[in-house]
């Protein structure tokens, strides 16, 4: 319990500093958004002033940030764009798309990644192991957008196994291919991490003890080796969910999925600061909460950390 409180207290300043950093960066984007709003026709000074007041643009940055965060936490209000639209409304449908995409990728990483890693680890040095190592290194080395386009052309267009773009066919059909592309990088990491961990644990003293006691091989591997091997993998998978949500920009672009990644990318280029800040704040929150949960889970799985 003390461990949990301690970790929580550490997470708060990190959250504040990270979101403030992003807030400051976004609102230092060049150009005056209010002037940009007016276009070619100059607005009267009074209107400009009123708009600036409305968006708190005359206050110092730290006050703006404070007001914004108060809005987020007290009213669940992510602010409004300079054209008067609610950011939370704008993102409502898009969140679902990205969450479904990230979840598909995550499950793919979890199931296939751990599976391949265990197989490779148990057969260290044999053909299956070499194949997994070579394959994962290759997947890590190829940039995700190249993987995406190749998969789209070969699996989607030429072989017709998956829909090539859009979300018309709903979950899971439309999300399978993009999810596999988005998850490919993490999958390779998970597989390698699992493999190393299994190899190390197979040599551990307690595994030898278990074998010496005459336990069945399936029990030694299932109960003893795997359980301990999966601790670092769980950490990675937890942290990676946040990465997947944030890293969806590229995949959403290739497969034309209307998720938050695409929205943020457009907003950055159109200088829609409030949208960028809203999304990034939420992403950072997800990321920090995931980290926190993993740390707590880690404490449960490995008592040495809790007490250390």
């Amino acid at each position: 319990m003390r461990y949990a409180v301690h970790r929580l207290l550490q997470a708060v300043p990190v959250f504040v500093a990270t979101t403030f950093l992003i807030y400051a960066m976004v609102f230092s984007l060049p150009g005056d958004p209010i002037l940009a709003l007016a276009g070619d026709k100059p607005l009267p000074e009074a209107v400009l002033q009123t708009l600036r007041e409305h968006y708190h643009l005359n206050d110092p940055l730290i006050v703006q940030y404070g007001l914004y965060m108060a809005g987020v936490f007290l009213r669940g209000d992510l602010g409004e764009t300079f054209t008067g639209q609610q950011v939370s409304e704008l993102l409502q449908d898009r969140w679902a798309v990205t969450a479904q995409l990230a979840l598909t990728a995550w499950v793919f990483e979890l199931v296939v990644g751990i599976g391949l890693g265990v197989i490779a680890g148990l057969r260290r040095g044999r053909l299956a192991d070499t194949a997994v190592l070579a394959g994962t290194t290759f997947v890590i080395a190829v940039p995700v957008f190249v993987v995406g386009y190749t998969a789209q052309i070969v699996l989607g267009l030429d072989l017709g196994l998956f829909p090539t773009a859009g979300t018309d066919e709903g979950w899971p059909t439309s999300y399978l291919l993009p999810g596999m592309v988005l998850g490919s990088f993490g999958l390779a990491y998970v597989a390698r991490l699992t493999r190393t961990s299994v190899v190390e644990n197979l040599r551990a003293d307690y595994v030898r003890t278990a074998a010496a006691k005459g336990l069945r091989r399936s029990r030694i591997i299932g109960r003893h080796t795997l359980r301990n091997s999966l601790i670092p993998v769980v950490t990675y998978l937890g942290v990676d969910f946040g990465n997947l949500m944030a890293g969806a920009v590229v995949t959403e672009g290739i497969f034309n999925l209307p998720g938050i990644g695409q929205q943020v990318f457009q907003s950055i280029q159109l200088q829609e600061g409030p949208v960028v800040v809203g999304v990034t704040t939420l992403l950072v929150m997800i990321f920090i909460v995931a980290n926190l949960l993993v740390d707590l889970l880690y404490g449960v799985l490995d008592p040495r950390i809790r007490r250390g």
Partner: protein
Amino acid sequence: MVDLKASAEAASGPKPQRNIRGSLWYDAWLELRGRVLFWLSMVILVVACAMAAFPSLFARLGPNEHCDLRMSKKGPGGGAIFGYDLQGCDYWSQIVHGTRASVMIGVAVTVFALLIAVLLGLLGGYYGGVLDAVISRVTDVFFGIPFVLGATVVLVAFPGHGIWAMTIVLVLLGWTTMTRLMRGQVIAIRDTDYVQAARALGAGDRRIMIKHILPNAIAPVFVVAMLNVGNVISGEATLDYLGVGLQYPDVSWGLQLNVAQVFFAEYPHLLVFPAMFLTATVLSFLLLGDVVRDALDPKLR
């Protein structure tokens, strides 16, 4: 086994001091010497570095030189082994000139990040207390910024950036992993017997950190740094591809892939060739990191 042999050699050799201290790295070298993958990735990297340093040795034409719009997107053949790009430039020459951006950014970012990591990791891990807490929290803050979004925001805020601005942005978002690793290593070594012994003999903090902790802590960080070069190159290409990284008239693989995305269904050579170079370079750094890690880890022998 190998260790025993090395220390036996060291004991009988004329300069035992050097061999004992260098034994981990020396053993690693003995191991690496016999690995095919090591030599394969080294050859690719030497070629890539040569292309980055002296592109004119490899390319027929200069960057964006003698481009002919009538040849736009033509496939390989007739003097141009890789065909032509959108502007009708010789694609082989363009790709060779693109090497410099990737290799330079990859190496420069990693070197700077490694320096930051070693410095902060040593200080935080060794002294602990308030200094360590501050360094750790700052690391957490930068660790929490999503890479693509964070980089995009900064790069859009400062348009007209070249290779060095890209380097700074990537260092800013990329120094945290190695710093955490370094700190952990230093903490593990701080309380070992040999450090205690050095302290008992009256060695100062700086001497302990540089002479005793650093050489023993650096190996895993060094491996991660090698892998990091590949990841940085990949990340830089992604930013170029998204259109927020380097801009024309700069030449880079990421920019070439950015152009290729619209036309690759009809003109696959636009995508395939730069992707091939990019993948080969990134793969070599990753493989090199992998074999060096195996060689440095005595447990796997």
